[in-house]
C-alpha cells in the first residue's frame, strides 16, 4: 500500500521558487484524497531553516539534502540523491515543478525510478484511488489525460503558474529530517551562473505579458512596449519574426518553438497570430490584440481587439494605464 505522496521543491539562491509551493499545495490535495501524509524533498545548499516553509503549504515532513555541492542543479548529482529519498517509501505519486530544471530532473529521475512521467501537467485528479493527470500536447493545441499502469509510480511535473497555491499558514509545522548526502562521482558540473538582476519578469511566470511582432519594425521600437510593460508590471515577449530579425533575444520567443505561456493578460502587438504563435499563448486568460489589419487571425482569439496603428495606439494606451495606476 502506498504510504505517502511526495512533493519535490526547487531551491535556488537561498529561497524556494514559488512553483515549489504550488506543487506542495497540489500534492497536499492528492495526499488528502488518498489519506496519506505528504513528504517534501528539498535539495540545495543552505536549505536549513527554509525547509519549514514547505510545511506552511501542507507538507508534513521535509527531507533535506543540504550540501555545498548541491548549490546548483546538476542532474548527475540531484537524481541519485532524490531517488534515494523516494526509494525509502512507497509513494502513491511524486509531484515536481515543471520549471526549466524541474522538467530536466523529472525526466532523468523517471528513468532512474523506472517509471512513467507526465510532464508539464495542468491538472491532477484522484479517481477512485487512481491518480490521473492532464497535460497539453502540441503546445496546447490539444490536451491529454494520462494514467499509470497498475503498480507504476505516477510522476507528475506541474506547470508553473497554473495550480492553485494555498495561502501560507505559518503556524503549520513540518518535521524536518536532514538526510546524509552520499554524492556519486560526477562527470558534469556547473561552471557559472549569471542571474539577471534587472528585475525582469520571467515569461513563464508572468501575470501580464506584452509581446511584439514584426509590426514593431525595429529593435529600438520595443522601447514603447518596455514602457507599457513597466506600467503594467509585465514581461515583454516576442513572436518568432521579431526574434529572427534579431530585435529580441530568443528567450523572449513565445510559441510552439519558444515558450508556452499562460498569463492572466496577453497583449499581442503587431503580431498576426500564426498557428505556432497561438499555440504558445492560446491558454492566456485574456488576450488583447493590437493590429492595423482587421483581417489578422489574432483577432479570432482576442477578447479585445484594437484595429489601429500600434505606434499611435501603444503610447496612448500606456498613458491611460498610467492614469489608472495613479488613481488606485
Amino acid at each position, binding site marked *: 500500500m502506498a504510504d505517502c505522496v511526495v512533493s519535490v521543491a526547487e531551491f535556488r539562491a537561498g529561497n524556494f521558487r514559488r512553483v515549489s509551493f504550488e506543487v506542495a499545495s497540489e500534492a497536499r490535495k492528492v495526499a488528502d484524497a488518498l489519506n496519506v501524509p505528504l513528504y517534501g524533498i528539498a535539495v540545495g545548499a543552505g536549505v536549513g531553516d527554509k525547509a519549514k516553509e514547505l510545511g506552511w503549504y501542507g507538507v508534513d515532513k521535509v527531507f533535506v539534502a543540504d550540501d555545498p555541492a548541491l548549490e*546548483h542543479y546538476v542532474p548527475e548529482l540531484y537524481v541519485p540523491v532524490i531517488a534515494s529519498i523516494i526509494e525509502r517509501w512507497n509513494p502513491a505519486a511524486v509531484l515536481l515543478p515543471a520549471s526549466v530544471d524541474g522538467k530536466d530532473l523529472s525526466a532523468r529521475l523517471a528513468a532512474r525510478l523506472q517509471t512513467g512521467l507526465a510532464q508539464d501537467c495542468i491538472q491532477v485528479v484522484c479517481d477512485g484511488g487512481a491518480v490521473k493527470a492532464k497535460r497539453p500536447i502540441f503546445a496546447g493545441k490539444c490536451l491529454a489525460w494520462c*494514467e499509470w499502469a497498475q503498480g*507504476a509510480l505516477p510522476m507528475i511535473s506541474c506547470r508553473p503558474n497554473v495550480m492553485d497555491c494555498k495561502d501560507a499558514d505559518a503556524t503549520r509545522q513540518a518535521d524536518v529530517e536532514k538526510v546524509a548526502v552520499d554524492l556519486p562521482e560526477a562527470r558534469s558540473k556547473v*561552471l557559472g551562473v549569471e542571474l539577471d538582476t534587472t528585475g525582469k519578469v520571467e515569461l513563464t511566470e508572468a501575470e501580464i505579458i506584452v509581446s511584439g511582432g514584426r509590426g514593431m519594425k525595429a529593435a529600438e521600437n520595443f522601447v514603447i512596449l518596455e514602457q507599457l510593460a513597466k506600467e503594467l508590471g509585465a514581461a515583454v515577449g516576442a513572436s518568432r519574426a521579431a*526574434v529572427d530579425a534579431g530585435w529580441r533575444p530568443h528567450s523572449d520567443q513565445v510559441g510552439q*518553438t519558444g515558450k508556452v505561456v499562460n498569463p492572466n493578460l496577453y497583449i499581442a502587438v503587431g503580431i498576426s497570430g500564426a498557428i505556432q504563435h497561438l499555440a504558445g499563448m492560446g491558454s492566456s486568460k485574456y488576450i488583447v490584440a493590437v493590429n492595423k489589419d482587421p483581417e489578422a487571425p489574432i483577432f479570432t482569439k482576442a*477578447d479585445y481587439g484594437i484595429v489601429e496603428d500600434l505606434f499611435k495606439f501603444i503610447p496612448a494606451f500606456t498613458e491611460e494605464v498610467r492614469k*489608472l495606476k495613479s488613481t488606485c
Partner: protein
Amino acid sequence: MNIVVLLKQTPDTESVIRIAPDGQSIVTQDLKWIINPYDEFAVEAALRLKEKHGGTVTIVSWGPQRVVESIRTALAMGADKGVLLDDDTLDGGDSLGVARALAAVVQALQPDIVLCGSRAVDYDLAQRGPMVAELLGWPHLGLAVSLDSDGSSVTIERPIEGGKVTMHASLPALVTMGGSHAVWNPRYASLPGIMKAKKKPLEMKKLGDYGLSAEECGAPAAKIRMVSLEMPPERKPGRIIDDGLDTEGKAAALVKALHEEAKVI
C-alpha cells in the same frame, strides 16, 4: 569525433490537430511531417562539431518508413549515415521504453557525444534525452543554447528562469538542445547535398538486432499512457473596441474593459 543525433519526425508546426474517433490519438492522415525543430538544431550543432573536430555524424531515429525522408534531409544537410529503427513492436511504448531502445542503438554506435532535442513539438514529452543519458550512465547537459567542445569535454550554456547557467561535462555525454531558430540557424540542404544524401548509408534495424523485445520497450513495458484526448476550451468570441472612437478614446475604453470587466489590471 563520433557524433550521434537522435531525430524524431513530428507533424509540421502548421498542422491543425484533430482527435481521432478512438479519442486517444490524433488524426494523422493529412499531416505533413518535418524534422522536430529542436532535432534540426541538433543536426546543425553536430555538423559544426564535425567541421571543427572531424569524424562522423550518425542520425538515429525510431519510427515508420516515412521517417526515411527526414533522415535523408539530415544527410543532405551533411550528416554521414542513418539508422532507422523501424519496428512496430515498439508501438505503444512509453518514453522510457523508447529511450531503452534508443540507448541500445547509441551503445552499439559508441559515440563520443549524443545530441538530441530538449523536446519534440508533438507530444511535448521532453523526456527522452535525459532518460537515454540515465540509461547509459552518462552525464547530460540540458537545453543548450550554445555548445562547444575541445574533443574530450563539452561546455554548454542553458537558460534558466531569470538567468543563464554554464555547464561542463567530460565525454561521452548527451546534450539536449534548446534555443530557437534564431540561435541555431540550421542550414538548408544544398542541391549537391541532396544528391549525395541518396548514396549515404541508411540502415534499417529491428529491436531484436539489439537483443531487445517489446516486453522491455513496447506496450507491455509502458508505465504510463494517454487514455483520452480533449480539445482545449474554445475561446469565447471577443469584441473589437471601436464605437467610432479616436485613438485616445479606444485606449481609455480598453483600460476600462481590462480594469472593470476582465479585472486583470
